[in-house]
């Protein structure tokens, strides 16, 4: 469904990605692992179109979307939960969720119940401004917002960061649930190894902007993987 092939990405003169490839399948979770600053976020940005790639291609359902605008990618079904949450601070929680309506047909423009059953706190804070929420609440809102888009590919950049344990469990369950629906491909960046291990169908490990290991979920048991992401 989503294929990233051999991409390079630069910030000015500094190269952040070197020939990275990745694929994501519906009903599967692809995990991206790696230490700080190895380029995980950069890879996600390349997928959703927030940073231009210098070389290589990104394909979605066979279509080349390498140079496509982020909004068009979103309209094709790629939803993004960014690191650092990126809530619209002055919009209310409800409005934040509603921003996800853009790719939807008029009839679909409602917030799916999943969002509230997953994150009940959002329901009680619909009228509050997004920017006023606590860090963890914002993270929940960011995920809810992405789900509102009914995505085909869900790109999650460290979604558990700053979230309380019980909700991390919920998020894990949610991802499992989405996976079980079988029509969503999930790309997950995660530093929290145990969490990743439980969910991953595939994984890649990055180092210095390049993929140094990859395999399917079971291979995560390999101690080498842990070593790679240890210091």
């Amino acid at each position: 469904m989503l294929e990233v092939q051999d991409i390079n990405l630069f910030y000015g003169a500094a190269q952040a990605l070197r020939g990275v490839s990745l694929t994501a399948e519906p009903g599967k979770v692809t995990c991206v692992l790696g230490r700080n600053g190895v380029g995980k976020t950069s890879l996600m940005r390349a997928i959703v179109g927030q940073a231009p790639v210098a070389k290589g291609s990104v394909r979605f359902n066979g279509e080349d979307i390498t140079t496509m605008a982020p909004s068009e990618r979103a309209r094709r079904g790629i939803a993004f939960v960014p690191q650092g949450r990126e809530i619209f601070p002055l919009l209310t929680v409800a409005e934040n969720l509603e921003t996800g309506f853009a790719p939807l047909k008029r009839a679909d423009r409602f917030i799916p119940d999943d969002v509230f059953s997953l994150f009940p706190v959002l329901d009680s804070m619909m009228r509050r401004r997004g920017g006023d929420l606590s860090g963890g609440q914002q993270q929940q809102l960011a995920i809810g917002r992405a789900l509102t888009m009914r995505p085909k590919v869900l790109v999650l950049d460290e979604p558990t960061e700053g979230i309380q344990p019980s909700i991390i469990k919920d998020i894990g369950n949610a991802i499992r649930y989405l996976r079980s629906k079988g029509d969503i491909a999930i790309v997950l960046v995660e530093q929290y190894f145990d969490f990743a291990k439980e969910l991953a169908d595939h994984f890649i490990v990055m180092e210095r902007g390049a993929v140094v290991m990859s395999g399917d979920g079971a291979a995560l048991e390999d101690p080498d993987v842990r070593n790679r992401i240890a210091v």
Partner: protein
Amino acid sequence: MTSSARLFRLARVLCSALALLLAAALVQRAEAQDISAALSQLTTNKYDDTEAALGALALSGSPAAAGIVSALADGKLVFGGLPPRVFIEGPGGALLDPLTMQPAADAPAVKPVRVNNRVRRAIEAANGALSLVSPDAGKRREAALAVGRSRDEAALPALEMALAKESDPKVKSAMNLARASILIAKEGITPAERIAAVELVGAEGNQDALAILRSVPESAAPEVKQAAAVAIEGIERNLAMWGMAQNVWYGLSLGSVLLLAAIGLAITFGVMGVINMAHGEMVMLGAYTTFVVQEVIRTSYPGLFDASLLIAIPLAFLFTGLIGVLIERTVIRFLYGRALETLLATWGISLILQQAIRTIFGPTNREVGAPSWMSGSFEIGHLSITSGRLWIIVFALLVFFALLATLRLTRIGLEMRAVTQNRRMAASMGIRTNWVDAMTFGLGSGIAGIAGVALSQIDNVSPNLGQSYIIDSFLVVVFGGVGNLWGTLVGAMTLGVANKLLEPYAGAVLGKIALLVIVILFIQKRPRGLFALKGRSIET
């Protein structure tokens, strides 16, 4: 001739005309008099003679007199030929005989009989005299008021006669008031009569009444003076209160102008964060659109003139909106996230637009007329309200609420806010940021454009128009609190009213300085404006 003598003579003419006409009306028989002497006086091309002729005409009782006077007022009275004769210029330029209204036998080269302010006043007086007995009650009332304003003793007998016959209560009270106004200053009436007059006038309670009451002669009895003093004091107190209300009204009106000027900026600057120095020029473009619309109407569809503003509003919105979209697409869009650089670019754009207008329309002011429904004024109590200003207030509020509704209630409004708060993330939510940006800037510019339509009614339409509003606009938006539309509304109205309350005490210049200082101090108290955006995201 000395001035007082002239005044005196004018008054006499007026009064005898009144008396005569009344008499004529009473006996139901108008005797046509020979007015040829008066007519020939109209051909000397001297104001004094014209004035005298008017008096004679009013006196003549001739049925043609009214027609001649109104022809003169309309500039249709011409003279020419040898010896010079007077004609009335009929439709299509035909020369008519003023007495018979039949086409004249010959058609000599003619010039209009010239009119100046003095003659115009004489025309008014003659018209007044002719209309105290007019069958139209409204005209009779006007005439009575005019007599009251002139306060001429000589008019008293005529007035009293007319009063005796008058049945319409409104006209009657006007005549009574006129009579009282005259009596107050008249020599040789009883104190009781004078006090009654003082009371009648005092009840009127307006500025004119004040002037009349002040004319109580030095020689009047002490109790009369006392009564007048009491009445004056009462009126002054009353008027002072009304004056306050009037100032507030002026303030609201000024506030609405500020609101109009600022509201587009509240979008481009307040919402989008573009330091839009070209905002004023958008207002200017709106004003020039109005000019062009009126120009087309004037030359091609004169009948539509009263609708010209209504036609101009959508056109100005579209035109300036389009220019705004153009600017956004070619320049601004490269500058998101670099707010300060938008200042440089938009400053450049503003210079270009100014010069473009100067090149196309010339550097001078352009005439934009007021449709009839925007001219004139009316009174509520002692509050004088000009229709133009009233409409501008209404219009400003309409625009404001329409905009507020757009931003708050519509999908595009939500997208606009989302995009301006986090462009990158909005794109990743599937919002077409390019399109939304262009629309937002276009909306702000379009609103500035329709503000220009309204401002063309009260200010110059010149290439400098925008420059004169840009500082105030920024001040309003910032004072109200950037990013909050309500702030812009309240900010504009507050500044307007404060300005107008300060002005009577400090004068226009010091008042404005004081206002600026107050704003500076106020910002120290509330560093994010009147309606500050609050919350975590702002504070860090």
